[in-house]
């Protein structure tokens, strides 16, 4: 069992744990509801909504990778789009360099996307099939470069393809999207994002649609970008790749961020029962002779009428009475690691080591013995 150390001072909530820097892009208490259409819409005046995101806060730091991990439908892609400025918000704030971002259109929106670029999951879907690679890149350069003479366009598009290791660039410029492989095309979409010289890249499942053998190359390319100071949000359902690729991991379940902290810590000492379930469910060749069976047979809840209290409580093996009624607040676990789980309430005393809002002190308590994930790691 790895030793769980508790730091004596808590970092300020907005600061990067361990880095001390301020986040370049930040969501603070963001809530996003979508109206429900069709027969489930409810009566007029009582319109029902999909609670896609509720009270989510996440920071992206310069030169660092933050992973946002969750199942499909957990709201992770919606959060990325809210950060990209494509969706408005029901509540909460998005801060870019500490300044609130408001517009989802017009000139202010353009300024925002000049700094924050989004990369989508399906490389074939994210390119207009009728336009060549050169057209796509030139278009992005035209939008973000004040000076765009034809010479500038040519050298800039060449540079962009070089930056994503597509060489010789001339061979790729004249191609239509369907003439490239998925991996090559995803590199082009990174090149397109780089045309804006962004300070943040939001990558929504950037490698999920790619073959295994080329995923690593694309991830490495994204990691290279952070060397130049770009902050990266890596949205994924693959918790193992988040471990290798990110310095911070935030875990999302049913529209809420349930746990967040330094990547290695979240993987090796997962605090929230959902995180434990997620990690123990993921296939891992290093753990082939698994003896533990995952008992869970539940499903994620409906986001139109989410369960009261903690949204994971219907599936949680450790659920307590308060989990059914009250949504858990953030409980700090030290070193920037926190979890929204009543297990970590100060007076609860069972597992973990943290106190509610006051800095945690004293000796670390061992993890719960009935924690299946902790046993296998």
């Amino acid at each position: 069992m790895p030793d769980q150390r508790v730091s004596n001072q808590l970092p300020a909530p907005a600061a990067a744990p361990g880095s001390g820097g301020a986040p370049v892009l930040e969501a603070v208490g963001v809530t996003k509801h979508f109206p429900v259409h069709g027969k489930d819409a409810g009566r007029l005046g009582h319109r029902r909504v999909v609670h896609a995101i509720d009270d989510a806060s996440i920071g992206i730091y310069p030169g660092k990778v933050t992973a946002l991990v969750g199942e499909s439908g957990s709201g992770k892609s919606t959060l990325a789009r809210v950060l990209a400025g494509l969706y408005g918000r029901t509540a909460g704030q998005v801060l870019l360099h500490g300044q609130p971002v408001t517009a989802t259109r017009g000139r202010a929106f353009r300024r925002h996307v000049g700094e924050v670029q989004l990369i989508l999951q399906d490389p074939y879907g994210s390119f207009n099939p009728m336009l060549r690679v050169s057209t796509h890149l030139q278009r992005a350069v035209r939008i973000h470069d004040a000076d765009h003479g034809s010479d500038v366009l040519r050298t800039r598009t060449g540079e962009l393809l070089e930056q994503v290791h597509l060489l010789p660039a001339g061979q790729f410029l004249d191609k239509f999207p369907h003439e490239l492989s998925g991996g090559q095309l995803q590199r082009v979409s990174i090149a397109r994002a780089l045309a804006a010289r962004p300070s943040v890249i939001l990558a929504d499942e950037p490698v999920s649609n790619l073959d295994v053998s080329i995923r690593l190359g694309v991830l490495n390319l994204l990691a290279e970008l952070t060397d130049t100071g770009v902050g990266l949000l890596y949205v994924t359902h693959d918790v193992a790749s988040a471990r290798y690729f990110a310095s911070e991991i935030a875990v999302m379940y049913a529209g809420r961020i349930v746990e967040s902290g330094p990547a290695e810590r979240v993987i090796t000492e997962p605090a929230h029962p959902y995180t434990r379930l997620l990690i123990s469910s993921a296939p891992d060749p290093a753990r082939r002779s698994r003896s533990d069976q995952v008992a869970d047979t539940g499903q994620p809840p409906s986001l139109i009428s989410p369960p009261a209290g903690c949204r994971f409580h219907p599936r949680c093996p450790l659920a307590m009475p308060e989990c059914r009624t009250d949504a858990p607040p953030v409980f700090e676990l030290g070193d920037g690691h926190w979890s929204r789980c009543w297990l970590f309430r100060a007076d609860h005393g069972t597992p973990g080591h943290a106190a509610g809002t006051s800095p945690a002190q004293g000796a670390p308590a061992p993890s719960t013995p009935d924690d299946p994930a902790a046993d296998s790691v």
Partner: protein
Amino acid sequence: MIISSDIEVAVAEPDESRPRHGWVRGLLVPKVLFGLVIVGFFILLAIFGPMLLHTDPGTVTSARLQPPSLKHLLGTTQQGQDVMAQVVDGARVSMEVGFGAGILTTLWSILVGLTGGYLSGTSSELLSMFSNVFLVIPSLPLVVILAAFLPNSGSTGIIIVITVTGWAWGARVLRAQTLSLRRRDFVEAARATGENTFKIMLYDILPNEVAIITATFLGSVVGAILTEASIAFLGLSNVTQWSWGTMLYWAQVSGAELSRAWWWFVPPGLCIALVGTGLAFINFGLDDVINPRLRAGISRRRRFARARSLVESAVSLMRPKRAATAVPAVGTATVTAEPASPDSSASRVLDIRKLRIEYGATAPVRAVNDVSLTLHRGEVLGIAGESGSGKSTLARAVTRLLRPPGMIVSGEMVYTTRSGRDLDIAALADAELRKFRWEEISIVFQSAMNALNPILTLGAQIDDVLKAHRPAMRRVQRANRVRELLELVGISPDRAGAYPHELSGGMRQRAMIAMGLALDPEIIVMDEPTTALDVVIQRQVIETIMGLRDRLGFAVIFITHDLSLLLELSDTIAIMYAGRIVELASSDQFYEHPLHPYSQGLLGSFPTLSGPKRTLTGVPGYPPDMRKLAAGCSFQPRCPHAFSRCEEAVPALLGQVEPAVAGHRPDPAPEVACFLYQANDASPEGAVAGGGRA
């Protein structure tokens, strides 16, 4: 986890085959060409006809109702006017009205449809309401009324009338298309790049609607020509202006059909029909070529191949034995003659020998190449490979679900029944095949939503399988079996009345497994059964499968690109690359000591969750283009260990006498297709001595 960037530089293939101006070539498609010739003829006739023909269509002569002659090529009317001159003049009016109204209608529908579809909110609603109102106004009476108000304004009046009454349908179709396009990823990507709304509409939406716009345009041209002819025929337009419609009007009022003056009314009617046909041909032809994906020319080749294989499969249906291939039909004698190793013969359930599958006939792509595999009873065989490596094709061949243009070119697949009888899967006749499939071997596909029938309940679908294969079973017995099966895969039996859309993805996949198990098959082929599922649900489904395997003892062929999943659940792992098996080993051997450089790269691509982080190496380069495989070993262009021999010959899949790594090995020995493990003089005998699994 950084790999040196010089090896992952992409090498773009020389593109000798790429059509530079696909749309120009599109015009050369026979259908389009034919249509263009006809329409072009009438356009030229409209422009140059009056100059060449010096007869005035209105001049009254004494040569009344003359049949066609050299002087009057198409005869004369009752007033002695030249029909030819009238047809030529009519062509001008028809073309003017047709193309004029076509262009105006299309422009107006684009404007309303595109803006109405892309913008949201009140303006969109208003535009939609506006076009819907016009859609429900009966257009013919409106045309008649409007035409009555503008009788003497010539073609312009008619063009305006037709445009006003005809734009709504096109606008509606374009609006629907725009609504679906604006949700596409590339529109979102363009927005995220910061592109403004007008340019997104112009560059992203509009080009993708070219097919519909063309169809709308050609349709409205035909419609306008017909409407003009109808108005004129009814005498509602200026009947002293010559058009095909007014010709018909005068022929009708003068009783041309009574006087059998066919030359008076046939030519204008024929002209209208011909122009319509020509435009329709252009429309059909352009449909095929307007999409750049269809431009590559593959589609035509494929269609040809499909036709050919259809003929071949028809031939093979008529004769019970396979007629299409050069392979001798496999009898029991051939199979027993095979030198089977003692341990495998008893429990062997499926034996694939040198299987080769190609797609297409003219330039065949070899999707599965020389694949040999043995599956034992109760074994879980995992097949991993990237997309296009041939793993799904193999699964379909084994279940005989391979459809043309895919064809088994050579090789054999021998299934051994529980009683020890050998069946050649490829040679099964239809009746045998129906029995074989699902009773002996069943398949579970990736997308359960597509594989389940959306309008039947789960219970009914499982019941169908039982009804078809177990006609003797009574209704109650079947109902019990359905409940039993659902319980088996962890679905509450009272969900038997649920429709597929009422179930979650994981439940649907379980239902598919229940259907696969319905007849107690010996083998279940699972083609990416959990790829669409979330990890937690995937874990539930996998545990269900493995639990059932332990209880029921069926063999599983599990196909996925997720090697880490495969390592957990397989007994044996086969790695496919570019249609060949490059490594075949037990799961443990494979994980501990992968032999093939591709396998090593794959294993080095997977991040792990437990234990210390290791260095990820990855595989350099990009997956191969199956149409242009490298010479020698297909992996050689991406291989860090490639040497000259790899370009010269294709390494065979051979058993390892002495694996490169030391350590105790349980039998059977791993097999690998790589020259790194083969001495220059390696002979097949040496390989067999090495203890190949065959």
